[in-house]
């Protein structure tokens, strides 16, 4: 109860600090001192401290199962394990906004410490823009989603956390994703400040690159964890469903990836400045837009916690205020200082990055339209449609092959002016790729022509990045690692998509079922009781034609608070493929419904994303862009 009070008043204190910070920074802005007043850093630190206190007191309420707190009552239960009590703190609307605030204040504080050698006015403006965002979020939390609402009489028991959210991958997925999302807020504020100060330059590029990389890494890992969770927990047997909520995390990723490459050009050549600014603005706007779409209940998904129109309207107005503000700043202050430098020689690294940008913009618009169009159509014509995977596959696949080919060529190019070297090895790689693909696919797919082109392009990229990574001297290891990871990712996804197979059938204990040279044997069932759920575990043995036996034990869980039945898939992962088995109860019957899937290269999807991130990580400590 005390924690409740402390948390609430710390939040208000945090908001007051924001206002005070704005006043002090405006004063300091007009001051003739050469450096930012140390007061600002102290104030920013105090603000962070209050938000941390507030966040900790919410966690404490969750740990103590203090049901006088409405958020705890709605999302927790005494029988829940401690780990999920803690992770339940951000597994709901109010708590997740607290997390936003925490990261927002943490990042601006870190920014102030880490930008000491930057111009004073630029730093203060960044602080001001960031505080605007922070004030918006404070008001949002306090006015529409207060996490410290008080309940009386105090309920004996809470309503419980949605069981499908009780998962280790999901416990850390929101914090990491938010670090990425919110990290883009610093890029947003900094780029607006730099535009206003006419400071978009090589030096600025160098300084902001770290922030872009950090956000990009967190966003990538955050998306991957969400995807792993969907694969293990939802039991749909896939890792990406083009669900609107997945899309809203992918969109900032696409712009951030494009931005990352533009920053390299800016750092090196002082060019592409308008791209950099626009991408910075779009990345954060898309992150906010994601928050709006998910939190307002305008989209229906597992992430929709509450349908409170007041919340939706608040975020919507806030979002558009930021968009108009940033566009205003851009149109009023943006000057292209360096017009000549935007004329690139057609065969150069700069041009290839520009091509990469346009591809990213295309992919972005496909995802954006697919996500938002149903909402527009619903409002205009009251017609409900659902945009599914075929839409995205049809529109993205044909452009993927040229994209991969361009990428493979682009990696070889040098800055300013370049020639294609080693023409022979390129041609040999291309021929090997096509032949290899043809023989792999010959007996598998019906659409041979299309897939041959697509996968040859993927192989071609894979070969050239591998060569870069393993055969060349390590002159640019981070780039080589990241692109190698990306090519591996694309290859794994494509093969996973083409070679996956699945079977759904009803089976009872003691029965056998034959499928694709494999025999599925349902041995027995076993019952188990845990503190927060009871479970039925099925024991299955899968024997292949070589007599190798794999045991799979999928589970059906009946959670007690709230009462929800979930199916836990059992997955046996090997280097080459995943065997995935999930079972369901068939009502009033001794039969169980099972779905058995063989999914090749699943492990490689996760590994390649990690390699991709490692590439990003390696390039953080670098002081200057190397050759």
């Amino acid at each position: 109860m005390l924690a409740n009070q402390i948390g609430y008043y710390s939040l208000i204190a945090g908001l007051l600090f924001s206002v005070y910070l704005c006043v002090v920074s405006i004063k300091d802005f007009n001051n003739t001192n050469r450096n930012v007043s140390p007061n600002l850093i102290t104030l920013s630190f105090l603000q962070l401290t209050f938000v941390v206190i507030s966040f900790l007191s919410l966690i404490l309420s969750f740990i103590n199962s203090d049901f006088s707190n409405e958020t705890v009552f709605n999302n927790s239960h005494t029988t829940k394990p401690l780990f999920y009590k803690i992770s339940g703190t951000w597994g709901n609307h109010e708590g997740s906004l607290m997390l936003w605030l925490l990261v927002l204040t943490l990042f601006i504080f870190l920014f102030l410490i880490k930008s000491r050698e930057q111009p004073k006015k630029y730093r203060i403006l960044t602080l001001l823009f960031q505080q605007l965002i922070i004030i918006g979020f404070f008001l949002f939390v306090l006015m529409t989603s207060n996490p410290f609402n008080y309940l009386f009489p105090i309920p004996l028991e809470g309503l419980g956390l949605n069981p499908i959210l009780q998962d280790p991958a999901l416990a850390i997925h929101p914090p990491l994703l938010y670090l990425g999302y919110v990290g883009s807020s610093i890029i947003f504020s900094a780029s607006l400040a730099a535009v206003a100060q006419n400071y978009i330059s090589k030096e600025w590029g160098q300084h902001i690159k770290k922030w872009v990389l950090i956000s990009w890494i967190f966003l990538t890992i955050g998306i991957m964890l969400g995807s792993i969770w969907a694969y293990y927990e939802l039991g749909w047997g896939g890792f990406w469903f083009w669900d609107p909520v997945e899309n809203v995390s992918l969109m900032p990723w696409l712009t951030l990836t494009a931005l990352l490459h533009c920053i390299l050009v800016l750092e090196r050549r002082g060019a592409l400045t308008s791209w950099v600014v626009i991408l910075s603005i779009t990345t954060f706007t898309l992150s906010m837009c994601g928050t709006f779409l998910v939190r307002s209940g305008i989209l229906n998904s597992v992430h929709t916690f509450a349908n409170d129109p007041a919340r939706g309207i608040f975020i919507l107005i806030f979002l558009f205020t930021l968009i108009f503000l940033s566009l205003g700043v851009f149109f009023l202050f943006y000057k292209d200082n360096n017009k000549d430098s935007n004329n690139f020689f057609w065969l150069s690294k700069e041009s290839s990055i520009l091509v990469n940008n346009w591809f990213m913009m295309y992919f972005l618009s496909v995802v954006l339209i697919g996500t938002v169009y149903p909402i527009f159509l619903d409002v205009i014509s009251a017609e409900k449609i659902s945009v599914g995977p075929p839409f995205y596959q049809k529109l993205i696949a044909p452009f993927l092959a040229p994209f991969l080919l361009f990428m493979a060529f682009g990696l070889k190019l040098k800055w300013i002016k370049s020639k294609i070297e080693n023409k022979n090895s390129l041609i040999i790689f291309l021929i090997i790729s096509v032949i290899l693909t043809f023989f792999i696919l010959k007996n598998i797919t019906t659409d041979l022509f299309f897939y041959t082109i697509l996968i040859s392009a993927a192989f071609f990229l894979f070969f050239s990045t591998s060569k870069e990574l393993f055969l060349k001297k390590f002159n640019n290891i981070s780039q080589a690692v990241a692109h190698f990871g990306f090519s591996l990712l694309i290859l794994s996804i494509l093969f996973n998509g083409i070679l996956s197979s699945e079977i759904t059938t009803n089976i009872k204990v003691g029965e056998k079922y034959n499928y694709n040279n494999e025999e599925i044997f349902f041995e027995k069932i076993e019952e188990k009781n845990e503190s927060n759920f009871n479970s039925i575990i099925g024991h299955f043995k899968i024997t292949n034609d070589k007599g190798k036996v794999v045991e799979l034990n999928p589970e059906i869980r009946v959670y007690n608070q709230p009462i929800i039945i979930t199916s836990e898939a059992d997955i046996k992962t090997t280097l080459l493929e995943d065997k995935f088995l999930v079972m369901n109860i068939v009502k009033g019957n001794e039969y169980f419904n099972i779905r058995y899937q063989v999914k090749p290269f699943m492990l490689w999807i996760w590994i390649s994303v990690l390699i991709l991130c490692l590439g990003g990580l390696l390039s953080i400590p670098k002081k200057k862009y190397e050759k």
Partner: protein
Amino acid sequence: MKSKLILIIIFIFLIFCFLIFYKGLDKPNTYTPKNNIEKNLPIFKAKDFYSNTYINSKNIFTEENYYIVNVWASWCVPCRKEHPLLMKLSKNKTIKLIGLNYRDNLKNANKFINELGNPYTQILIDKDGTLAVEFGAYGVPETFLIDRNKKIIRKFVGPINKSIIEEIKTIIK
């Protein structure tokens, strides 16, 4: 000139997006599928709230009447909100209300009833929450409509509101 035109176009487009989203907010996109599947009443034994004796379910749903089973608890905040509506509904002669006191403290439950009135012809105690599961409840409050053939014909998740009351009234007419 050209850049001004672009600016205006962008501005109009953004305003358009804003309006669409604003309108979209009015249309809540979550919908619960209507549970129209008829289900037999579970057979059970439960303690009576006042006499503290066990009663068989056959002796509860005896009359040729529509019944409502309402899952409630004194600690449940929305229950307080729906209670006046239940009180009104209980004045209707063609329907009988059975209360299912879910995971509650007897003292608090008594206080709740004394304070807000008793719409129920009978209250059953569900101390450990198993009875609610038998009915297929997700939580509190939840309301089940039972027809003359002793079948559960409707299930309302969450607190009762005026439109649900209207729906019930048209069914039992």
